[in-house]
Structure formats: structure tokens, C-alpha cells
């Protein structure tokens, strides 16, 4: 029994189980990060305090930021998305259940890899969550902790990429009949926006981290050189970093919208404008990151554009605020705990948003940059708006997840204590405009003592509030009163008859979607029945797969090996290979079967398949990834005084022939896909084999090219200069993509050795997309790196 229980939580791919795993894990990391925050506030409570040393403080400040942003706030939103998006849109599960488990385990292990830095010599990462270079270079931060933090972030980027593709595909492809875009609940909408941002923002971080790790381990010069250095990192990091703020915020806003509708007993005022505002936020969020760089000395016109764009992003948020207030106007507001937290989240967000307008000014930023004013501002947005919103979501959805009610009085107490504590911590910071961030201590003559003391007292009150929250959860789980299927009279689909913990309501009938459902629900919430029976446990077991956890463990150990040494790296690779082979063999023997979703609302993707949709989502994220890499190349090259002329380093004829070989492999792959479409199936395996052979030849020539460069005289290596660094890293990453493609080709050939099925044909087609993309990247890489 215990064994089954353990196995369930390690092997589950069910969206609700994975949601609960996300939920619990994110609170675990929140606990660690909150302890670090408490240490910091204790240290800063009085001037000249010696509670923490500078080394400990810098680690605390760094890990607090990293854990809270990447391992708590964002994943808590994802937890609710996992659990409630499928039922909200009438789907059985997420589009790719195993990838869902994979994204969870990558997230969890990534956090551990980062956190384990505390136990390595030299301690955890200590250069701030922003990882500003060149402080993060091996010269200034030789500790393994920094390498481990970057490794953990690489793992979490992988997790995010997999997860976003999954949720996006689910929302686009798994909506029940009748669940058109405009009928989608607002939480689903805002998760959709979040996913779009994550999909295109995280690859920038990933590219930056790969360059950083290659600087630290291989000795490349991206961030240690003057041509790249601080400004390159700032661009790469903040292109990711600013959208990340909205990534953390939007799930909370979506949840607050759900809560508002239920607890005002009104539909959202001007829902269409709310959706439009969401799209506007996504778009503008990618065009404002420069406001983090006003004082680096970037061009003043750029600064003015970034100021205007940053102020522009407050327009959709202003519209949202009007929508919230107008929804309440002449409504019937039920002041239950979720509504308190929703209102608190919005009120705090107003303060965070308005102080953000101060920071958007290229002039006001001069004094505010790097001060506690900024700390106050972003905590009002990230802690205040996001955390209070997500607490609201917890109070709102907990009864559905557990089937038990939470205590209202403890909930309200939690709200009052935490809103007092929160404002005591962060409001004084607006008056600490002369105090730098991230300092371990200050002298008494600065006059910063009293305000810091108030903030520190506030932090203890805030933590106490969360102990109330925790006790409320435990108490409810142990002996809370039963919740019933719809305790709040919710109007979205997750509140239909399905009880928490059981199977999802599968494909609830088309007629009950949208407003007819709303009215029937408010008439009698117990009346609506799921149109499907429940799945028995024996079928549920087929949903188990050990591969996601094995694969994540392998990748995490391998990347932890970057910090702990080569043997660990190899061990991880072995495990990773074993997991991949296992995964492939599961598929070859059809060991993992997910029942197909009946067709529903798929506009505008009626004619495509969900794997193709997922592949396109992946390729779009790869566009950002290679875009950032090639952009970084252009940046350092533009800033570097001497670049070897074309032909002086590289053998252009050989590389040209190699390009032709790769493009020919693209042609054979294209022919394979065409043959499948026209039904000439017998040539397909030959064509796939030719693609494989051409790809292998490409890699062999590439390898000999590398060998000649590395052993030539004088040798051209990653360490000898930026031309070498950029060449080896970019062609290396492209080569890794080719190798991944070749492995997939081998798998395709094995899989199709005895006959074809429609599924196998589709897989070849989807692989064709990937291979075309890899070829296309080379079409950019070859001229940029060899010919100009």
C-alpha cells in the first residue's frame, strides 16, 4: 500500500497529481526562501549588526531571489494551471502527460541543484539573482555554488520550455466542444498569456546561462571580455527578466478574476477588453527591459523609447483595474477569505504599479536605481500582487483539491496579519531611497536604523501570518468540514460534479458550456453531472511512467556535474541515456497509452495535429534561443576591435561543402515527408536512412574541422578570443541539435522497421519540421560565422 502510494507520486502523469506535486514543492521552496528572508531582515534590523557576515548575506540575498522567483511564485501559478486548466476547458488531461511530469521533475531537481550550492565549498551563488557579469565569472566567483545555480537555472529553463509547450497545446487543442476562445475562463486566458511569455522569454535566459557556464567551465570570453561583458549580460538577462515579472504576476491576476466573478456574483465587466489587455501586456512586456539599464550608459534615445514603452504597459493594467472596480459596482460582494485576498492583491498591486511608473522614468531612475525604493516596488508587485492573489487562489480552490473546507476565521486572520506584516516590511522601504540594496549592514549615522527595524518587525509578523495559513491547511486536511462539489457557487467548469481527488470531469457535454451552464449551476450546483463515468484505478496505472523522473534525474546529475566534477557529469549522462532509451522503448512497445481526446474546439488549428502544434511551439522558442545566441555574436563582434577576415581562420570550401551536405539531408527529409503524404511509403525508410547518413557525414566533417582548428598553429580555441568563443559555442550548440536529430532518426528507423501506422507517419512529419529548422539555423550560422 505504502509502496503503491510512493510509486504513484513518483510515477504519476495525471495533471491533478502533478498539480499537487507542484503545489507542495513550491511551498517547500517558499519555506526555504522565507527563512533566508528572515535571516536578512534580522541582520538589517539594527545598524552594524553581526548576525550574518557579508558572505552569508550575499548568499541569502541571491538564493532568496532565485528560489522565490523560479521555484515558488511561478510554479505555484503552474500548480493551479496544472490542476484546473484541463477541467476549466473540459479536457481530460494536459496534452502531453509525460512531458508534464517531466517538467515537474526538472523543476524540482533544478531547485535542489541550485540549493545544494549551500553545502559546496565556497557556499551558494552570491552574485544576486540577476547574476550580473563579470561578478559571476570564475575569476570573481570561483565557488561551485555559482556554477550550480546556473546549472539549476538551465534545468528550470528546460522545465519551463517543456511545460509551456504542454499547456499551450492543451489550451489550443483540448477545448471541449462549445469552449470557444471567448468562453474560456479568465484564469485559463491569463495562464495562456503567461505561457506565451515564458515560451519566448526563457530561451533568452537559457542562451545567457549556456554562455555563462561556457565562460566558467570552458574559459570562453563572452562575459569576461570588455566587448561582451556586463552590457551583453544585461541585455540577454533582462530580455528574459522583465517579461518574467509578468510571468509571475499574470496567473495571480487570472485567479483574482475568477474570484471576483464568483464573489461579486457578476460576470467580468468587459471581458473582451480584459483579454485584449492581456495580449497587450504580453506584447509590450518584451519591449521594455531596457529600463533596467538606464545608468549603464546606453544611448539616450533608446532610454526614451524604453521609458515610453514601460509607461505604456501601465495602460492595459489600468484598463484591468477599471474592469475590476466596475465588476464590483452595484454587485453583491461576498466577503469570504478568497475575496479578501483578491482585494488585497489588487490594492497592493496599485502601490506596486504606481511606484513602477517612478522607476520607468529614465530621470527618476538615476536616484532610485539599486536602492530600497526598488526593493519596495518589486516586492509590492511580486510578493504583494502575486502572492496575495495566489493565496486567494489557494483559499478558492483548496476545497476542490481536497474536498474539505478551510476555516474562514483563520483565513481572515491570516489575511489581516499578513497584510499588516507585508505593509510594515515594504512600505518603509519607499522612504529608504538612499539605502543601497543587497548591503549586509549599514552604520548608525545613515539614519536608516528605525525604518529597517520597522521592516524587520513586519517580517516576523508576516511570517507569523503564514503559520496561521499553514495551520489552517493542516487543520482542514485533517478534519475540515466536507466542501461539497461547489462550495462557492463557482460558475466555471471545474466546479461541476467532479469532486477533488477523483478523476477529472471528462469532456463535459457541449450544451453545458458557457452561460447555460452558469445559470443551471447557480440554480442548483449539485445538479450538473459529468457526462463520463469515472476511470478505475487499473486504468490510472497506465498513466504511470518512471521515465520522466529518471530523465530529469539524469539531466540534473549531469548538470550538477558541471560544479562537482567530471565523474558526476558522466554518471548523469549514463542515467540520462538509460532514461531516454527506456522512454523510446516504452513508445516502441506502446507501454504508455493516453486515450485520445475527442475533437472539440480547435480553431484555428482544426487541420493540424497536437504533436505538430507542440513542435511549432518548440521551434518558436528555439527562434528566441538562436536569435539571442546570434544576437550576442553580433553584439560582441560589433564591439570588438579586431575580427579575423573571412577565410583567414576557417576553411570556407570545406565548410561550404559541409553546408551543401546538410542542406541535402534537408532535401532527403523533405522527400521522406512528401512520400508519406503521397503514400509512396516504401521509399520513406531509404530516405530517412539517407538523411541519417548525410547528417553523420556533416558531423564527421564538422569534427575534423574542429580538430584542425584546435590543433592548428597558432591554435584557434574557445579561450583564445571572442572569435573562438563565439564560433565554438554557436557551432557546438547547433551540432548538439544535429546530434539530437540523428538520435531521433535512429529511433524513427527502429520504430518503423516493421510496418507503418498513421501515428508513425505523423511522427516522421513532425520530425521533418525539426530537421528543417536545424537546417535553417545553419543557413544563418554559416554566412555569419564563415563568410563575413
Amino acid at each position, binding site marked *: 500500500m505504502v509502496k503503491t502510494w510512493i510509486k504513484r507520486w513518483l510515477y504519476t502523469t495525471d495533471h491533478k497529481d502533478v498539480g499537487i506535486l507542484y503545489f507542495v514543492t513550491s511551498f517547500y521552496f517558499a519555506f526555504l526562501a522565507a527563512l533566508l528572508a528572515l535571516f536578512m531582515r534580522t541582520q538589517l534590523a539594527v545598524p552594524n549588526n553581526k548576525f550574518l557576515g557579508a558572505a552569508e548575506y550575499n548568499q541569502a540575498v541571491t538564493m532568496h531571489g532565485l528560489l522565490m522567483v523560479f521555484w515558488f511564485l511561478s510554479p505555484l501559478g503552474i500548480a493551479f494551471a496544472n490542476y484546473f486548466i484541463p477541467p476549466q476547458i473540459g479536457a481530460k488531461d494536459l496534452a502531453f502527460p509525460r512531458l508534464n511530469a517531466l517538467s515537474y521533475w526538472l523543476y524540482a531537481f533544478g531547485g535542489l541543484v541550485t540549493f545544494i550550492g549551500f553545502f559546496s565549498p565556497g557556499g551558494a551563488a552570491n552574485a544576486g539573482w540577476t547574476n550580473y557579469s563579470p561578478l559571476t565569472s570564475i575569476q570573481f566567483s570561483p565557488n561551485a555554488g555559482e556554477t550550480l545555480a546556473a546549472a539549476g537555472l538551465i534545468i528550470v529553463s528546460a522545465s519551463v520550455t517543456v511545460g509551456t509547450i504542454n499547456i499551450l497545446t492543451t489550451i489550443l487543442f483540448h477545448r471541449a466542444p462549445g469552449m470557444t476562445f471567448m468562453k474560456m475562463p479568465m484564469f485559463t486566458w491569463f495562464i495562456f498569456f503567461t505561457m506565451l511569455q515564458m515560451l519566448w522569454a526563457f530561451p533568452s535566459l537559457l542562451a545567457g546561462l549556456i554562455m555563462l557556464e561556457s565562460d566558467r567551465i570552458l574559459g570562453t570570453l563572452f562575459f569576461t571580455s*570588455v566587448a561582451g561583458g556586463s552590457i551583453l549580460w544585461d541585455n540577454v538577462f533582462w530580455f528574459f527578466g522583465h517579461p518574467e515579472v509578468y510571468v509571475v504576476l499574470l496567473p495571480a491576476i487570472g485567479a483574482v478574476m475568477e474570484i471576483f466573478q464568483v464573489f461579486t456574483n457578476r460576470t467580468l465587466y468587459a471581458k473582451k477588453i480584459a483579454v485584449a489587455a492581456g495580449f497587450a501586456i504580453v506584447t509590450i512586456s518584451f519591449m521594455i527591459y531596457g529600463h533596467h539599464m538606464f545608468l549603464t550608459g546606453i544611448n539616450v534615445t533608446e532610454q526614451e523609447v524604453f521609458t515610453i514603452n514601460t509607461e505604456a504597459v501601465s*495602460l492595459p493594467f489600468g484598463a484591468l483595474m477599471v474592469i475590476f472596480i466596475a465588476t464590483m459596482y452595484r454587485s453583491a460582494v461576498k466577503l469570504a477569505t478568497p475575496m479578501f485576498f483578491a482585494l488585497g492583491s489588487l490594492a497592493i498591486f496599485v502601490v506596486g504599479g504606481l511606484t513602477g511608473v517612478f522607476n520607468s522614468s529614465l530621470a527618476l531612475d538615476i536616484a532610485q536605481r539599486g536602492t530600497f525604493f526598488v526593493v519596495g516596488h518589486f516586492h509590492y508587485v511580486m510578493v504583494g500582487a502575486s502572492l496575495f492573489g495566489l493565496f486567494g487562489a489557494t483559499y478558492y480552490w483548496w476545497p476542490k483539491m481536497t474536498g474539505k473546507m478551510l476555516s474562514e476565521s483563520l483565513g481572515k486572520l491570516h489575511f489581516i496579519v499578513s497584510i499588516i506584516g507585508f505593509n510594515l516590511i515594504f512600505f518603509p522601504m519607499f522612504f529608504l531611497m538612499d539605502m543601497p540594496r543587497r548591503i549586509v549592514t549599514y552604520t548608525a549615522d545613515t539614519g536608516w536604523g528605525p525604518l529597517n527595524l520597522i521592516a524587520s518587525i513586519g517580517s516576523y509578523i508576516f511570517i507569523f501570518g503564514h503559520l496561521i495559513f499553514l495551520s489552517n491547511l493542516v487543520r482542514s486536511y485533517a478534519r475540515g468540514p466536507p466542501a461539497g462539489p461547489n462550495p462557492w457557487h463557482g460558475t466555471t467548469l471545474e466546479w461541476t460534479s467532479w469532486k477533488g481527488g477523483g478523476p477529472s470531469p471528462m469532456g463535459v457535454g457541449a450544451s453545458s458550456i458557457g452561460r447555460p451552464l452558469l445559470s443551471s449551476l447557480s440554480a442548483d450546483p449539485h445538479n450538473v453531472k459529468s457526462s463520463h463515468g469515472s476511470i478505475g484505478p487499473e486504468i490510472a496505472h497506465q498513466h504511470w511512467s518512471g521515465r520522466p523522473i529518471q530523465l530529469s534525474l539524469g539531466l540534473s546529475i549531469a548538470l550538477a556535474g558541471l560544479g562537482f566534477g567530471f565523474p558526476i557529469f558522466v554518471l548523469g549522462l549514463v542515467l540520462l541515456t538509460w532514461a531516454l532509451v527506456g522512454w523510446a522503448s516504452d513508445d516502441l512497445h506502446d507501454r504508455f497509452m493516453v486515450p485520445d481526446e475527442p475533437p472539440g474546439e480547435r480553431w484555428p488549428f482544426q487541420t493540424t495535429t497536437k504533436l505538430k502544434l507542440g513542435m511549432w511551439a518548440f521551434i518558436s522558442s528555439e527562434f528566441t534561443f538562436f536569435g539571442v545566441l546570434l544576437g550576442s555574436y553580433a553584439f560582441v563582434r560589433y564591439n570588438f576591435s579586431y575580427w579575423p577576415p573571412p577565410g583567414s581562420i576557417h576553411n570556407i570550401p570545406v565548410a561550404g561543402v559541409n553546408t551543401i551536405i546538410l542542406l541535402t539531408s534537408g532535401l532527403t527529409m523533405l522527400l521522406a515527408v512528401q512520400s508519406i503524404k503521397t503514400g509512396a511509403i516504401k521509399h520513406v525508410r531509404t530516405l530517412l536512412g539517407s538523411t541519417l547518413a548525410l547528417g553523420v557525414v556533416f558531423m564527421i566533417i564538422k569534427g575534423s574541422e574542429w580538430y584542425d582548428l584546435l590543433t592548428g598553429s597558432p591554435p584557434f580555441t574557445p579561450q583564445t578570443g571572442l572569435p573562438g568563443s563565439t564560433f565554438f559555442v554557436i557551432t557546438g550548440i547547433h551540432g548538439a541539435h544535429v546530434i539530437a536529430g540523428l538520435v531521433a532518426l535512429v529511433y524513427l528507423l527502429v520504430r518503423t522497421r516493421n510496418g507503418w501506422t498513421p501515428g508513425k507517419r505523423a511522427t516522421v512529419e513532425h520530425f521533418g519540421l525539426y530537421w528543417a529548422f536545424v537546417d535553417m539555423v545553419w543557413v544563418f550560422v554559416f554566412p555569419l560565422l564563415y563568410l563575413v
Partner: protein
Amino acid sequence: MAFASVAEPAATYQSLFNLYLTFAIIAGTITIGSLILFPILYRKRGTAEEPEIGKKERGNLKVIGLVVVLMIATLSTTAYASFTVKDFYLRHPDCKTAICVQVEAFQWAWNFTYPNGKNVVGLLRVPQDTPIVLNVTSSDVFHSFSIQALRIKTDAIRGRYNVIWFNVPGTCPSYGKSGFCEYRIQCFELCGLGHAFMTGRLIVMPPSDFTNYISSGP
């Protein structure tokens, strides 16, 4: 530019800050006020009114449009004011009228080099009522140079030179242990273990004292 009665550009900064603060307080009061007032006003009482769910979706573009237009007007005003102030910050006097000092940040102090080659770590002495131009860079990691009370700051980055200027009048908010007017110089970007202690002192002296100081050897 000489003989400022108030410290510049700090005074200009403060007027811009006040403009933002005024707008923020107005907007904040209205929004937070409604967020507190509406739930009290429309709190559901014993007899619930007929639920609105199922009725036609509401939404009035005019209200939202009006608010957005108001916001655009406000933000344009503040943005324009910001551009003007930034322009004031950028228009630094040249080294004929001002005293130009090279500032090199390193872990964890500041190295000041005067035009005559005099070189001091941690202490920046300047004459009052005279524009001072600082050319800031770093020899190692990313730092940020600031004299916060004077509302000036710029990042110190290796390979880059960022210029800031200021002008301090004879009136003094606080006298330091040198007996002269002093301001705190501090690093505002996490730069390693010594970040919190990467401070310096700006000492503002009467011009005659400064002349003596600057000519008194390295």
C-alpha cells in the same frame, strides 16, 4: 552654471519626483479608495438580490476608454518632464569651466584622479559652487557610483566611461569629521563581499582650501 544657490541636479530631480508623486497619490487614492469602498458599499446583505449571472455580458468601452485617455495624458506629461530632466543631467559642462575627475571603481573602493594627476582613494574633495564632472569606469566588476544625497548616480562598468556632473552650494546639510561639508559616496550594485563597505566621502571645501589641497603633492 557657477554659484548655484541649490545643489544641482538634485533640485531639478526633486521637482520631477514631486510631479510623479502628485499624480501617484491622486491615482492611488482613487483606485485603492474604490477597492476599499465598493466591497463595503455593495456588501451582500441578508436578502440577496437577483444574481446577474446569465444576463447579457456587460462592458462599457467609454469608461475604460476615458481612463486610458486620462492615463495617456498623465504619462505623456510625466514622460516629457522626465526627458527634460534627463537632458539637464546629460548637459554636463566641459572641462574648461568644470573640474573633471576620473573615477575608477575597483573591489571595493573608488580611485579619484584629478586633472593634475593627483590620485586619491576613497576621498573626493571638491570646491563649492563649482561644477564637477566625473568620468566613471571600473577596473573589475560591475559597480554603480552614487552620491545619493546629490541625486547623482551612474554605473561603473569596465571598458565604458559614463559621465555625470554636479554642483554644490556653500550651504551644507551636514558637516563631517573633516570639518567641511560631507556627502556619502556609495556603491549601488552588488559587487562582492565588500559591497556594503564600498563607501567614500565627498568633501566640499571653500575654493581656496581646495586650491591648497590640489597643489599639495600626490
